[in-house]
């Protein structure tokens, strides 16, 4: 007869005698690696249905973060979807060490694209070299993102581990840092800066830097602002509230006469703590009393915020909602969709949206970014007080005052000077060449006094045949194209297209031609070191010689003045990463 005592005995025996012994299992990290490999295989097994090019482009338009950059502005590159698929195939093929190059230029006919899976591309894709004769145009849209850097910093400095290669986005790394670009002159809205030098990881190739600077505004001349702070004060925000309070107080200290602040919190319920207040001390008092509470936030907070923004709208001014949240909107799937729809509908009202994510790891980052993109805004991840100050205080004018929207860039390379090019990073950012002048195609926003940096690896037309063949193998000579381009010695033409931050005025466009390969400068030196580090962390197939150690050495040499301390921090990060990679 089985009784309780017997059963207890058996259960205890089971628990103790069949317990795993120390050493039975491999490390958690190796389990994780194995699992994520399986995940990748799983994803490849079930490729998403290939959308038609138009659908895909539409989708990309929706995905692209409308950005409004601070010092870390990024650009987004574009390529025909079919070509991206081709490049993915290429990347799979070129996994063998030493095999560099791409066979990308023979862009397939639109519609014949093989299954294109953003997710998959995210993990394997690297942009290959493109022959200028086959595709002289490279188009990209402005975009901002800093989450990746904050993420990298967390992994390397706090968690003592290297990031998975696919998590490294070169464009985000490069744009995290400030550069010393010349200011636009007169009434110019943007001024490009060019520099080039031998690529540190492949000296036979050139690394071309294109930096764009927008005018640093005279603070007194900035339009009046109305900020609606929408603060998630649900219980999960408890840990980060001191940071939020301090960041907001710092921002409030930057307010000028005429600026107004409203504060809405949502936690247990939606509360308007302040409405259109222009008295800094009152603002600070309210901020000081903020506390995390409640546990059932609803979606109406954001509606209230838009209502206040509309009520106190400053025509021609800077009208902006600043949403501070841990990204867990807790509003349920259906209202989340409604939220996105509403934010999207407000795009043309002239009300901008900044979403600052904070708290627990940034795994809700996508959600935060998506909302910001839909709302003509920008997104940040605040992982520390330092980052909060960076966004709200030092980068305030850039982050909070839009200068131009739907900003697009296009580079036309001269085949007489450049044989092939490759944009570093931006694998996930797509814009086709013809979208450049299509003003229905949205793009990112650029703020006041901001910078944007893009790097191209280029192979000059006079490079050795072996270098050319390694980059773009098996190219048959073209019969009907002439590579002379009327004998021009120009390297390239760089075009910028943008729209005013408000209103429906037609887009403006400016073109700048670059006479020849520009010289190296300190901006280039720093960007080249960052790029090398990024390529090494990514284990790039195009830069097997890139090394963290070399990048750290270069970075140290070209630290410059580094007023923000960002570069010094990066150097620290590089050294730690070098140790971890051993």
């Amino acid at each position, binding site marked *: 007869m089985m009784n309780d005592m017997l*059963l207890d005995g058996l259960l205890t025996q089971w628990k103790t005698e069949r317990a795993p012994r120390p050493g039975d299992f491999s490390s958690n990290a190796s389990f994780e690696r194995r699992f994520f490999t399986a995940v990748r295989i799983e994803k490849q097994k079930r490729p998403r249905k290939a959308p038609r090019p138009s659908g895909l482009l539409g989708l990309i338009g929706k995905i692209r973060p409308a950005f409004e950059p601070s010092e870390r502005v990024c650009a987004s590159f574009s390529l025909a979807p079919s070509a991206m698929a081709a490049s993915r195939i290429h990347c799979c093929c070129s996994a063998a060490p030493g095999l560099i190059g791409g066979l990308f230029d023979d862009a397939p006919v639109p519609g014949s694209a093989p299954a294109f899976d953003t997710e998959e591309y995210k993990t394997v894709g690297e942009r290959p070299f493109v022959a200028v004769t086959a595709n002289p145009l490279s188009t990209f849209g402005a975009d901002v993102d800093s989450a990746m850097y904050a993420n990298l910093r967390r992994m390397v400095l706090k968690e003592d581990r290297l990031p998975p290669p696919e998590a490294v986005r070169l464009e985000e790394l490069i744009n995290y840092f400030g550069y010393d670009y010349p200011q636009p002159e007169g009434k110019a809205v943007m001024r490009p800066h060019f520099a080039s030098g031998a690529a540190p990881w492949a000296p036979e190739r050139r690394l071309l830097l294109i930096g764009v600077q927008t005018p640093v505004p005279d603070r007194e001349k900035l339009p009046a602002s109305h900020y609606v702070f929408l603060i998630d004060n649900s219980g999960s925000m408890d840990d980060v509230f001191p940071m939020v309070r301090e960041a907001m107080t710092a921002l409030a200290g930057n307010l000028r006469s005429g600026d107004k602040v409203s504060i809405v919190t949502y936690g247990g319920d939606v509360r308007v703590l302040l409405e259109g207040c222009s008295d800094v001390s009152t603002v600070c008092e309210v901020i000081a009393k903020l506390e995390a509470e409640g546990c059932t936030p609803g979606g109406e907070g954001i509606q209230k915020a838009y209502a206040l923004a509309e009520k106190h709208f400053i025509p021609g001014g800077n009208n902006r909602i600043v949403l501070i949240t841990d990204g867990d909107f807790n509003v349920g799937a259906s209202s989340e969709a409604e939220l996105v729809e509403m934010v999207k509908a407000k795009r043309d009202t002239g009300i901008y949206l900044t979403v600052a994510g904070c708290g627990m790891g940034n795994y809700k980052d996508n959600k935060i970014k998506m909302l910001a993109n839909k709302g003509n805004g920008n997104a940040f991840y605040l992982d520390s007080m330092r980052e909060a100050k960076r966004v709200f205080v030092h980068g305030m004018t850039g982050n909070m005052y839009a200068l131009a929207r739907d900003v697009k860039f296009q580079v036309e390379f001269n085949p007489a000077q450049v044989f092939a090019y490759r944009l570093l990073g931006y694998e996930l950012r797509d814009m086709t060449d013809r979208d450049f002048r299509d003003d229905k195609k949205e793009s990112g926003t650029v703020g006041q006094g901001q910078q944007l940096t893009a790097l191209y690896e280029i192979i000059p037309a006079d490079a050795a045949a072996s270098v050319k063949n390694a980059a773009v193998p098996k190219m048959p000579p073209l019969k009907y194209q002439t590579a002379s381009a009327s004998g021009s010695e120009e390297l390239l033409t760089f075009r910028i297209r943008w729209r005013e931050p408000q209103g429906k005025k037609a887009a403006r466009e400016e073109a700048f031609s670059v006479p020849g390969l520009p010289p190296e400068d300190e901006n280039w030196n720093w960007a080249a070191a960052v790029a090398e580090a990024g390529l090494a962390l990514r284990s790039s197939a195009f830069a097997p010689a890139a090394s963290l150690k070399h990048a750290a050495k270069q970075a140290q040499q070209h630290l410059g003045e580094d007023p923000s301390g960002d570069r010094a921090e990066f150097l620290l990060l590089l050294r730690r990463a070098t140790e971890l990679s051993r």
Partner: protein
Amino acid sequence: MDEIEMRFQRLCREELSYLRGGVFRIVGNAADTDDVIQEALLRAFRRAGSFRGDADLRSWVYRIAVNCAFDLLRERKREAEAGRQYAETASEKDEKTEKRLAELEKAVSELPELYREAIVWGCLADLSGSEAAARLGCSENTLYQRVFKARQMLKKAMTQKEVAR
């Protein structure tokens, strides 16, 4: 790494050792344990969009891990029987207890899902009552009730076996 992968990464980091502790006690070796956990995680990954939150996902993985573990046992047994190699599990030192343990294992595997997972995570794994309850998405009290009910069912099943012998 996208949002979903991040969720799974966190889940791995936070729960792997507990999952291993429970599953190992069912399947008896580390390699099978990891296979089972990976399978459970992959199944969860395939339907990642349908979980309401992290807690929901976690409970689901804990449940599926137990199901997968017992599936593996059944699979093993079927293979063994096909090869007529089974029945050598009893050790010589205490044949009777080993037999009883094997019977208990079988009885647990035949419990309804809710009660089976209550026994595995509530009694066999290295989790306290409150930890186990949190992972199964129920209150501690509910867990104890389930364990109590499960024990009654086990006693009944084992007694019937004794009688049958």
